[in-house]
């Protein structure tokens, strides 16, 4: 989902940056408030950030003969609600853009919009929906993690289609092409990410029960 540096036309680069900025600022305030009001959350916030940091560094092979990487943003969104991930996800993207030449500064806004904003919100929605329908914590975590991953890549495909519409079939045709690159490759990764999320939350439910209860993830 990393759109490479310089690969969005300037108008799109600016547009996505302007669109993402308020979410990231709001996210920074959400993180600051969480740390100030609940200092005991700092450990779990670190875990959520670290989880994204690890997962977005790992390129995994997929059934299509391509490789891609997970995003890991669902865990933090479920624990702390999505705004927190707008900051943490953007920090990860900035790190990769500056030090790893992966993604870029001009495409940071667009990449943050897909990975740090749409992904966490979609994942959080899937988690809440699963819980609302009577699903337990772990099924909810699985759905939330997997959907956050998939939604990120669908968003990237649509962003690219918007910037590079097909000469004959327009936006829709281009969307099909970009989704063809990203979507199917991403399905096994999303499932894998869901399973990793379940593993993480199984550890947390045993060892961080007080925090999960305070955050409303587990009933006290």
């Amino acid at each position, binding site marked *: *989902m*990393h759109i*490479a*540096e310089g*690969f969005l*036309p*300037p108008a799109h680069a600016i547009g996505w940056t302007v669109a993402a900025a308020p979410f990231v600022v709001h996210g920074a305030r959400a993180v600051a408030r969480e740390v100030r009001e609940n200092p005991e959350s700092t*450990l*779990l916030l*670190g*875990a959520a*950030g*670290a*989880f994204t*940091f*690890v*997962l*977005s*560094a790992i*390129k995994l*092979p997929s059934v299509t*003969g*391509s*490789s*891609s*990487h997970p995003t890991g943003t669902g865990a933090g969104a479920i624990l702390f609600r999505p705004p927190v991930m707008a900051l943490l996800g953007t920090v990860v993207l900035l*790190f*990769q*853009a500056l*030090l*790893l*030449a*992966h993604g*870029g*500064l*001009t495409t940071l806004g667009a990449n943050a919009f897909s990975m740090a904003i749409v992904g966490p919100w979609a994942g959080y929605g899937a988690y809440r929906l699963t819980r609302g329908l009577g699903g337990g914590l772990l099924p909810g975590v699985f759905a939330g993690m997997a959907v956050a991953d998939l939604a990120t*890549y669908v968003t990237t495909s649509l962003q*690219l289609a918007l910037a*590079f519409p*097909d*000469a004959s079939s327009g936006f829709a045709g*281009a969307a099909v*092409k970009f989704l063809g*690159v*990203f979507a199917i*490759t*991403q399905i*096994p990764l999303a499932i*894998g990410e869901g*399973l*990793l999320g379940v*593993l993480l939350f*199984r*550890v*947390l*439910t*045993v*060892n*961080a*029960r007080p925090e999960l209860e305070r955050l409303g993830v587990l009933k006290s």
Partner: protein
Amino acid sequence: MNRRRLVTVLLVLGVVALFAVPLIAGGPADYTGTDNQATTVIQQQDPGYEPWFHSVLPPLSPSVESGLFAVQAALGGAVLGYVLGRLRGRRAVREASTSETPGAGATGDGPQ
């Protein structure tokens, strides 16, 4: 092996299988990153498009690049391990101080 531990092992095996099976069964494929494929599609869509900005860093050799990705994963893994270790240690301390209240909490299915 208790049930909880069995589920953990199965989950880990599931994740490994999910990525090992395509590698083994898929035969030769070059596993290009989707990000690079997307760049190729962009150039097909608009052959005249020139990136108008370049990475702050000069292009890295693939080996250096994969090393840096490994550093990123290692940093994240270290922090995650530290946090989970502290949480686990904290629980051990708490359980020792409330010593031997059997079935304390809903997860009283034995030590891990």
